[in-house]
């Protein structure tokens, strides 16, 4: 036998290797896009700065006036959008996989509703603006606990979690509206602005804690990727592979809730990002892997920052909150998703 006969034909790269390369390329593209968007975000405004100078200003190089403008005024807003977008993207990806439901997202299951309620309550009591994000975080966690208590029947089933979540979200949204209606007029507009989502006027203090929490949460989510993948196989298989499914699901849900609440604390409730990003990533990069989870973070950051820049510079209306743009994009997307879900052969099959 000649060696040639033994060696198989030069095999095309395996599907997994192909996907890995594709994900890496997409991630590189997303990072490049993020750099460009950041430069544009830092450079544009009432005083424009060339993008390269703006990036240099961010790290403290160049003209002191530019450094001051970029670092003190523009960076918190841009970085808040980046961090919140990344957090929402990863939170959505984790939540949709754990809930096994493509429509599960923090804004559907009540977490963002809780965050809104917390923030609006803080504004209503006239607490200082610095407390608003903290109140939002508490509200989000409280909503998650409420959801857990209402959905717990000696265990969680996914459909009950989602249904109860939708009920919780509606209830909380009603409570938010009640607050706004009962407000003194001057506070009402602040509250309304917050509940539509906005990164306007963020400061370093607000960004510091939130950004660190989101970074830590994303790192933890990436470290938990194998658990997510095993959990995807169903409770019995996960159990047979040595992963206690209930505990793992609870940990991952908690992680997603914290990420979404911290993001909401930074920016107010922003719809669509957590819902859409996992689908966009899946469409571009294929079934979930460690790489696609990271890509979800990058895509979420690019999407939110991009939407914020559209709000700032492309729309004729001044001072529109970024949440309005993402929500406007979100409605048709939701429709398309639902239509695809209604196809008879959509969804996973049993063996």
């Amino acid at each position, binding site marked *: 036998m000649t060696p040639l006969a033994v060696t198989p034909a030069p095999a095309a790269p*395996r*599907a*997994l290797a192909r996907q890995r390369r594709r994900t890496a390329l997409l991630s590189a593209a997303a990072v490049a896009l993020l750099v460009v968007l950041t430069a544009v975000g830092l450079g544009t405004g009432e005083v424009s700065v060339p993008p390269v100078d703006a990036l240099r200003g961010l790290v403290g190089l160049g003209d002191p006036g530019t450094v001051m403008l970029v670092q003190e005024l523009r960076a918190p807003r841009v970085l808040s959008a980046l961090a919140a977008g990344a957090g929402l993207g990863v939170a959505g990806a984790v939540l949709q996989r754990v809930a096994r439901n493509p429509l599960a997202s923090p804004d559907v299951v009540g977490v963002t509703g809780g965050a809104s309620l917390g923030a609006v309550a803080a504004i209503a009591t006239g607490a200082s603006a610095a407390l608003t994000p903290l109140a939002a975080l508490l509200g989000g966690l409280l909503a998650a606990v409420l959801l857990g208590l209402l959905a717990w029947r000696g265990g969680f089933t996914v459909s009950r979690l989602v249904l109860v979540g939708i009920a919780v979200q509606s209830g909380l949204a009603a409570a938010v509206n009640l607050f706004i209606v009962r407000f003194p007029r001057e506070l009402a507009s602040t509250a309304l602005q917050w509940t539509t989502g906005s990164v306007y006027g963020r400061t370093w203090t607000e960004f510091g804690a939130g950004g660190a929490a989101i970074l830590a949460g994303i790192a933890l989510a990436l*470290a938990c990727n*194998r658990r997510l*993948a*095993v959990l*995807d*196989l*169903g*409770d*019995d*298989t996960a*159990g*047979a*592979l*040595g*992963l*206690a499914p209930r505990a793992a699901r609870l940990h991952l849900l908690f992680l997603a809730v914290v990420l979404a609440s911290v993001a909401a604390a930074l920016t107010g409730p922003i719809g669509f990002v957590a819902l859409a990003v996992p689908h966009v990533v*899946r469409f571009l990069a*294929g*079934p*979930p*892997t460690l790489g696609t989870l990271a890509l979800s973070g990058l895509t979420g950051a690019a999407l939110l920052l991009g939407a914020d820049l559209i709000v700032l510079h492309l729309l004729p209306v001044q001072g529109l909150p970024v949440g309005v743009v993402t929500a406007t994009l979100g409605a048709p997307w939701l429709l398309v998703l639902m239509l695809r879900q209604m196809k008879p052969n959509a*969804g*996973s*099959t*049993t*063996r």
Partner: protein
Amino acid sequence: MSATKPSTSTSTSTSTNASATTSADAAVSTADTASTGRLAAHGLTLGYGGTVVVDGIDLALPGGAVTAVVGPNACGKSTLLRGMARLLSPTAGTVTLDGSDVHRMPARALARRMGLLPQQAVAPEGITVEALVRLGRYPHQRMLTPWSKADQAAVEEALARTGTTALRDRAVDELSGGQRQRAWIALALAQDTPLLLLDEPTTFLDLRHQLDVLDLVEELNAEAGRTVVMVLHDLGQAARYADHLVVMCDGRPAAAGPPADVLTAELVEEVFRVECRVVPDPETGTPLVVPRARSAKRAARAAS
């Protein structure tokens, strides 16, 4: 084995048979001395909510052998398997694996010793066969360690044994039923455990694919010395492929032992409420259950 092939030249066939038997015996004895995969239940009670499904049973399954659990629907055979695989906590009693309590072991440590093919497994949408099988290495990995050569070798071995190497790049949800079943078995094999539990591995498969799966089980036991415990529906297949048979009835084992001793007409009648004859399988000599013709009985009654 000797009955499967009609012997033509006596001298050669006996000699090969003899050597085959001794090597099989050797495999069994090494597995026994390694004492891996001996499952036992002690006063085990299992149930869902308030209902008791498996009722205080004592059972010892041999290591290094193939055990089949059979019984009528709702007799508790799948529940028993789930309890032994620790997917259900017992209401009373214990399950031991080689003498140590399964429910007190760390989950991953147990998952390195016992693999399971569940009855209803759902593959995530779009996942490839290779990606699925790789997840079988989960109990062998730590949180941040990279994929190792040993992991890859186990995956290649599992793919090769189940004949799914050529399917590795295909999405699991695009495969036929038989291919999909083999991919899921490959996942359990990649786990590389001395004991393998299979919950109705042949359900929803046509005859040829049923036999493929059962031949694979036999091969895993004979070549790799794995202990296999499986829930089956077909009594003839159970008798053919199992060394040890457990017949469940109303949450308790009605009989357990070698198929030839256990599977009698009286037992089948008592457990399944089916009148039958038990004849030697013309291919293997193992017991074969042949239900009595009911219409003939009616005809006989009408004549008398």
